[in-house]
């Protein structure tokens, strides 16, 4: 047993860290640190800096721009991004649409979309949830009817993150309402957000921010060539993506940075045993999660098996820790202060409540573990 990275892995981590130190723009780093709003330009500027370096899509095959890094190196890289305070890489194109196209797309689809995703030419969003279909995604109703060489799409998506920035959306739609199993009637469609009939309406969340949207489809004509994989096989595609979740779901690097910041920010409370103990318990939980994450990574490396329900555990613990950190940050703020940073901290607390709900609520994650790992 050896909990440390190998000499090569440690050298790689140092290389990434040094590069980030030199290349992460100061103004972006400061915005992230101040919990400030990141504009589309901010997000895409950072995306392009990584693309120019050749590091924006490490997991892709080398021919499309992947780095050929081992899963451990990819994990190190992603954790270093979080630890350095880099703006997030929006996953919808890089980590969701692209893996789907690589696995199920035609050559033409790959050539058309992958280079643009890599360079950041297209901003993607994800059309899964609907007003009546949250955790029970397979009940979705947005329908696509084939008419000649097009699908005609009608319906509504909801909670669509950054749809107001997006050039493209990938959607799960119902192509066969009569299918025996409702999963079999679902297809995976790519749509240009400029297509007539698509309307994006902001949904303001409890922190007052505009991050998610409703997206309405009103007789939207989508060329048949934008179907991914076969008609009626959309659920297979969606399930593949679930199993493709990344091993940095726990966001250890990001939480380590938040913890360090919290310790600095809450220094006036360090002799308050009640606050101190709460802080220590979160720190211990984070130390444990980091090792748990490495154990899962090590197991994946040894067995060659995809992580499966392990990712659910990382999601549950990782998001609980993220929420606890923002809650303690808010508690540490002087209750009489209403400067910009104190206000941002409070809003961050409000915003982070989403983490245990999105990407499969933590209750759904527990269902997954109960079924897949425990056999209940």
């Amino acid at each position: 047993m050896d909990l440390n990275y190998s000499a090569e892995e440690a050298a790689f981590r140092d290389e990434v860290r040094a590069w980030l130190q030199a290349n992460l723009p100061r103004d972006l780093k400061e915005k992230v640190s101040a919990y400030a709003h990141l504009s589309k330009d901010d997000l895409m500027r950072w995306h392009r800096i990584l693309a120019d370096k050749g590091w924006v899509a490490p997991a892709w095959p080398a021919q499309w721009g992947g780095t050929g890094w081992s899963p451990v190196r990819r994990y190190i890289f992603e954790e270093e991004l979080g630890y350095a305070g880099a703006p997030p890489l929006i996953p919808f194109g890089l980590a969701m649409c692209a893996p789907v196209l690589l696995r199920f797309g035609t050559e033409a689809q790959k050539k058309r979309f992958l280079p643009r995703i890599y360079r950041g030419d297209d901003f993607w969003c994800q059309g899964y949830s609907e007003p009546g279909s949250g955790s029970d995604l397979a009940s979705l109703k947005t329908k696509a009817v084939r008419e000649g060489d097009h699908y005609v799409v009608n319906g509504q998506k909801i909670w669509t993150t950054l749809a107001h920035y997006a050039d493209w959306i990938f959607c799960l739609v119902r192509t066969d309402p009569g299918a025996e199993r409702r999963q079999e009637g679902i297809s995976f469609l790519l749509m240009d957000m400029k297509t007539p009939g698509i309307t994006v309406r902001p949904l303001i969340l409890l922190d007052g921010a505009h991050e998610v949207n409703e997206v309405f489809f009103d007789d939207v004509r989508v060329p048949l060539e934008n179907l991914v994989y076969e008609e009626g096989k959309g659920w297979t595609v969606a399930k593949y993506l679930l199993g493709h979740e990344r091993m940095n779901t726990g966001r250890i690097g990001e939480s380590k940075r938040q913890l360090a910041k919290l310790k600095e920010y809450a220094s006036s409370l360090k002799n308050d045993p009640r606050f101190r103990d709460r802080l220590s318990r979160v720190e211990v939980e984070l130390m444990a999660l980091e090792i748990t994450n490495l154990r899962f990574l090590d197991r994946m490396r040894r067995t060659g098996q995809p992580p499966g329900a392990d990712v659910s555990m990382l999601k549950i613990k990782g998001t609980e820790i993220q929420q606890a950190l923002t809650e303690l940050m808010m508690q540490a703020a002087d209750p009489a202060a209403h400067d910009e940073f104190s206000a941002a901290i409070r809003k961050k607390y409000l915003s982070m409540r989403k983490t245990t709900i999105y990407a499969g609520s933590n209750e759904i994650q527990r269902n997954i573990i109960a079924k897949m790992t425990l056999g209940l």
Partner: protein
Amino acid sequence: MNFDYNEEQQLLADSVRRFLARDYDFEARRQIVASAEGYSPQAWATFAQMGLTGLPLPADCGGFGGGAIDLMGVMEAFGEALVVEPYLPVLMAARAIARSAQAKSILPAVIEGKTKLSFAHVEKGARYDLSRVKTTARKSGDAWLLRGEKAAVLGAPMADKLVVSARTGNGIELFLIPGQANTGYKTLDEMRAADIVLNGTKAEPLGGDLALVEEVTDLATALVCAEAVGAMKFACDTTLEYLKTRKQFGVPIGSFQALQHRMVDMCIAYEQARSMACLACSKIDSNEGPGDRARAVSAAKIKIADSARHISQESVQLHGGMGMSEELKVSHTFRRLTVIAGQFGDADYHLARFAAL
């Protein structure tokens, strides 16, 4: 990075598990607990044959110079089987003696399994503060005489020799006294302990200091974390099995989501605890200094204490009435985990220590 035991460690843990499955099952353990000795001389002899008594001791005394990770798999097996042998007190005392001039004269018999030791440090009222020692050692002529009282000394009733801490003009030092004829008492987790009264008891000086007591205690804490992981594993496994087999309302109770989610949380707590036991044991072995070691051990003990409480309480609750019955092993695992949560410092103590480091 690698989280596997090496081949030797795995073989040892496997053979300990095989022995325990054959000779130390729940019924055998019940008889051992009920016996006058409160431990199994036969199991102890087997442990010695397997090399468990020698593993953590220096090679120049006949040991194997092993570390905490070498013992992790063994401790997990002890936790699963709820072994009541005085392994930790013997190990603590032996590691302290290993630093003394008497190491070569005392330890070979310990390694052979002929001599059992105990580590008498804690006193009433000191709680978990290792520096609170009132027992004194005074020199009278050529002899050292100890006065004071040591409390809840684990493994003392069966110990042939005791390592005792006492204050001299130089702070805390360690001494050796012969075993005390003391039947002691049964602890909450069915082990044996005794209070030791020292009324000018003649003692042999071993040297050592508070730092050595802390070092030995940190080692034992890391190992008890590994033992807890084994006990938690049993509690989780047996509870999961119960959820799958126990039927109410015509279905296995494991089909109820309220219970599924609680079972999942137990498993998550187990994985997190195991990670921290790995960290504690590896920091014991990596020798990066007492501060680093103490910080990792305290962090681990916080998590182990919290998880032990969570998992033991839930394992009883999910067993329903059966969980309260002393017929089921899970209720004895509950006792052991309850004691482990406080052994060598409870979560509150280690939270304070962790924050101070």
